């Protein structure tokens, strides 16, 4: 189908984009890669009157080394992240998960900022930035503010971004020595969304796991941390049995959806099994 009519502007800077959004009011929307928004417009599930295209803004693009963290511009594409040497070195989980997003053509256009701002709990990257303890940086008419990933995802397809705010960058703490990671995604076909996904990080200390962080994809209306399993894994022996026991608590406190791809119980089961696998792989077992 053809989208409903809208106006389109391509601002030359982030500040110009913010002004265009503020002038456009509630009916204005940012477009970056368009890989989530254009399918919605085509199905006429969204009717913005103004699209503000940030796709050409180079100030929002690229990965920079900020000492103890990487700062990733919001319109850095999935394709760039998968191939970026800084991401590979300091934050490999992001590259590993991004490679499972959609397909090569979508990854050429889709951006990290768009994937997060879309706020889809079935998207792979929200749970990943949650597990990585990332901070999202937004700019609006009142200036810049920092939003911890844990406060960013508010509800299904809803984030704490204000309508006239632009997500400019994502800051991700570098993983130090001893950290390992794994993104486990269960899906029915190659390009489909995760039925359940698990992003796990562990810090090994000799024979045990000192610390674990686990983000869950599609286990609620927002991406969630598996806190009970994290606590159980911290201090556990670095063995498959011990980590599987910790993973048995992965679905505690979750409220997974039920749909054509799986009942809620089935998703709980998947979350436990995938968390066990992801923890073991992250711990190098």
């Amino acid at each position, binding site marked *: 189908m*053809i989208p409903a009519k809208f106006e389109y502007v391509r601002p030359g800077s982030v500040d110009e984009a913010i002004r265009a959004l503020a002038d456009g009011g509630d009916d204005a929307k940012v477009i970056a890669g368009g890989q989530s928004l*254009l399918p919605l417009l085509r199905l006429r599930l969204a009717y913005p009157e103004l699209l503000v295209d940030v796709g050409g803004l180079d100030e929002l693009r690229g990965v920079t080394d900020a000492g103890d963290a990487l700062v990733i511009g919001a319109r850095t594409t999935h394709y760039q992240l998968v191939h970026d040497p800084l991401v590979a070195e300091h934050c490999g989980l992001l590259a590993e998960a991004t490679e499972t997003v959609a397909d090569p053509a979508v990854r050429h256009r889709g951006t990290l900022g768009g994937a997060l701002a879309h706020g889809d709990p079935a998207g792979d990257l929200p749970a990943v930035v949650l597990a990585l303890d990332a901070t999202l940086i937004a700019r609006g008419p009142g200036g810049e503010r920092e939003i911890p990933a844990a406060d960013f995802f508010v509800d299904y397809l809803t984030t704490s971004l204000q309508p006239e705010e632009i997500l400019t960058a994502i800051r991700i703490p570098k993983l130090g020595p001893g950290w390992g990671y794994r993104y486990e995604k269960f899906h029915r076909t190659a390009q489909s969304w995760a039925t359940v996904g698990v992003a796990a990080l562990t810090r090994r200390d000799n024979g045990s796991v000192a610390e674990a962080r686990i983000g869950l994809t599609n286990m609620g209306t927002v991406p969630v941390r598996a806190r009970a399993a994290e606590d159980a894994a911290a201090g556990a022996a670095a063995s498959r049995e011990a980590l599987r026991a910790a993973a048995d608590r992965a679905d505690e406190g979750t409220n997974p959806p039920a749909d054509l791809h799986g009942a809620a119980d089935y998703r709980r089961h998947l979350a436990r099994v995938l968390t066990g696998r992801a923890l073991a792989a992250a711990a190098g077992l």
Partner: protein
Amino acid sequence: MAEITVTVDGVNYEDHVEPRMLLVHYLREIVGKTGTPIGCDTSNCGACTVLMDGQSVKSCAVLAVQADGTQITTIEGMANGALHPLQRAFHEEHALQCGYCTPGMIMAASDLLRENPHPTDTEIREGLEGNLCRCTGYENIVRAVRRAAQAGVSE
């Protein structure tokens, strides 16, 4: 209406388009490149795949205004006097039945081979994961891409 300048298969076009016009509609209806089909409403099938500045994109998931200033290559720009080696390989390996997915498959495959001139079968399958075929069962498509790779296509 917005004014755009786009190079399609080596020819420069300047046109006025509605912002809501999708690149695939621009290519088919304004430029006349009907070699690029539309197969779905959800940007899943990959039939509409073209190259935008050398990289594969689904032309139903790009606005024509977003293609302003870019170079687009469609299936119609692949043959250069003779069939492109990928087109020949698809023909020789029976990699199509109805042919609806073929333009997208060939464009996605050309992007894959540009980046990875000698892919394994698994890499070929992953490179084409965004392109659906309802007819062939994919076996002969993988074989055709392998054959084109062996013949040394890298663009």
